[in-house]
């Protein structure tokens, strides 16, 4: 057994070993077993509770399972046909895209700005960092409740300020008008995720070699030039990672929508995730809910592959 596995482990471990080859070979034999033993629990857990449910979700989408009648009957493409005929589905798909793209732009741009602020040196940094972390570390459902009250149709303090300045007379009805509601949902969602993006990008900012920036400054390039020609290109991989995380969380999130508008007014903020929830859990039609939810998957996979590929191509850091 020892002899049989010699060739591969040796090539793997050839570089930088301080231990004699004989010892190494025995240890590396054990490594093969250890690697599996250490990895297996996680893999089993994930296969059982992610892989299996994913397959089950696919199966449900082809079935007529409902909350009242959990027996599994093959229904073919009936669920898909039904959701494709439903204008709310197309509305949700469109809203999901607007929601994701809108939030992503805000998150990446303001995340970068915030990261720049946070790496700067100033007094009271601790308290600023604390404030900045709040939106992200607070459970979404709770911060969304705070916003629900901030955007209240009658007592919104934002409206009060606008009235005091004299910009409006009555109320804005932030969550009551289709376009404004969408804007509000996007803004709240971006507000929540910008700190996460900033934290990820901070890591990138810190990693940029200082002498590079100093050299550029000596050579006479100004702040913005350094920003756009050195900092941002060097940070591209981390910006992409931040964007990837943001996109995934945004694409599949329904909490902000659920708490603020419940998809309303008249489905103008309904996204795929919330529509799947209303259909599948509150409406009890599990088959259709699963079909709607599954629609997220190919889009998600495509986005992930695109961004990961972009990161690899740049590969600057």
């Amino acid at each position, binding site marked *: 057994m020892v002899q049989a596995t010699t060739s591969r482990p040796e090539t793997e471990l050839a570089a930088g070993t301080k231990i004699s080859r004989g010892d190494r070979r025995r240890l590396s034999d054990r490594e093969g077993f250890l690697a599996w033993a250490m990895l297996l*629990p*996680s893999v089993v857990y994930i296969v059982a509770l992610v892989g299996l449910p*994913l397959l089950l979700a696919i199966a449900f989408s082809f079935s007529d399972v409902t909350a009242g009648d959990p027996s599994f009957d093959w229904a073919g493409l009936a669920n898909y046909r039904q959701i494709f005929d439903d204008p709310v589905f197309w509305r949700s798909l469109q809203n999901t895209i607007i929601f994701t793209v809108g939030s992503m732009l805000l998150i990446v741009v303001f995340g970068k700005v915030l990261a720049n602020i946070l790496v700067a040196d100033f007094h009271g*940094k601790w308290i600023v960092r604390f404030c900045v972390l709040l939106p992200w570390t607070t459970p979404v459902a709770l911060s969304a409740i705070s916003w629900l009250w901030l955007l209240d149709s009658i007592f919104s*303090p934002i409206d009060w300020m606008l009235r005091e300045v004299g910009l409006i007379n009555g109320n804005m009805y932030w969550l009551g008008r289709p376009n404004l509601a969408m804007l509000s949902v996007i803004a709240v969602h971006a507000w929540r995720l910008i700190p996460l993006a900033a934290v990820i990008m901070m*890591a990138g900012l*810190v990693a940029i070699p200082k002498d590079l920036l100093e050299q550029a400054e000596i050579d006479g390039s100004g702040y913005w030039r350094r920003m756009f020609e050195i900092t941002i290109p060097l940070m591209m991989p981390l910006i992409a990672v931040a964007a990837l995380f943001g996109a995934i969380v945004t694409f599949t999130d329904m909490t902000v929508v659920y708490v603020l508008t419940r998809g309303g007014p008249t489905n103008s903020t309904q996204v795929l995730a919330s529509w799947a929830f209303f259909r599948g859990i509150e409406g009890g039609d599990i088959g259709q809910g699963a079909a709607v939810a599954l629609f997220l998957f190919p889009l998600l996979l495509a986005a992930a592959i695109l961004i990961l590929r972009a990161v690899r191509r740049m590969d600057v850091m």
Partner: protein
Amino acid sequence: MTAVASVSTNAGNTDKGIEALRRRAIRRHRLARVGVYLAAIAAALICAGPFLWSLITAFKQSPDLYQRNNNPFLYNLPSTRKHVMYLFENTAFLTFVWNTLWVGLLVVAITLMLSLPAAYALARLERPWSGPMAIAIFFVYLVPPTLLFLSLSRLVVAVHLQDNTWSLVLVYPTITIPVSVWLLVGFLKSIPKDIEEQAMVDGYSRLGAFVRAVVPLVFPGIVAVIVFTFTLTASEFIYALAFVAPTAEKVISTGVPTELVRGDVFFWQSLQAATVLVAFPIAFVFNLFLDRFIAGFTMGAVKG
């Protein structure tokens, strides 16, 4: 010290061009300082604003609150603790807090027990499949709860955990394990290999070297994972909403929004008090470990 300084200023005075340049540089520097402070204050206000507003609201009397023309940022009537007390005395808020805490701690424990060895296997025990496996685990993170909650809710029913907080303990590690593995791989790669090799020379087995030499060194990473896992668990909403309906079994993120809203009646002050009471401690703890978290994130992202 003073001698050196005066020499340098004297030298500066000899050349007026340089002096002017320096003054301009100082002025620009001051302007930049002011800019940094303004930006920092603006950022803090935008991020924390809603919570400050919650804090003000929590102590307001209802007649003050529901008066459209009152300045919403001031107490037009004396403040009251009534609504905060209501939260503790007449709602299940403390039950939600307790449920969130023990679910969070159990999930953290399960996550660490599973992800630490897995991350070690991927980072150190270089198998041909460890690269693809790491990517596969990362992709698991991309499978969102919104895709799984319907079938998982059936599974939860099948194991008789529906309407039971334990269902969350069972399911949450699926969200936290992939992220933790990713973070920990980064931390583990930053530890020099010599450490384990030395430990093994000293007579420990590979496993012994991992437990005795590597785990203590990766402690910052473990802390980052604990904080991050707990935050993820406390914020999770969809599974908690889909699996658990009875009041006594709910966690904060679903309990507060559903139990303090009766039909169209919102208990605004109590809701805001709950938000503040939850938000501030979590952000406080997270802030303590932010640097470690950033370190872990970069290592996972860039080297993993």
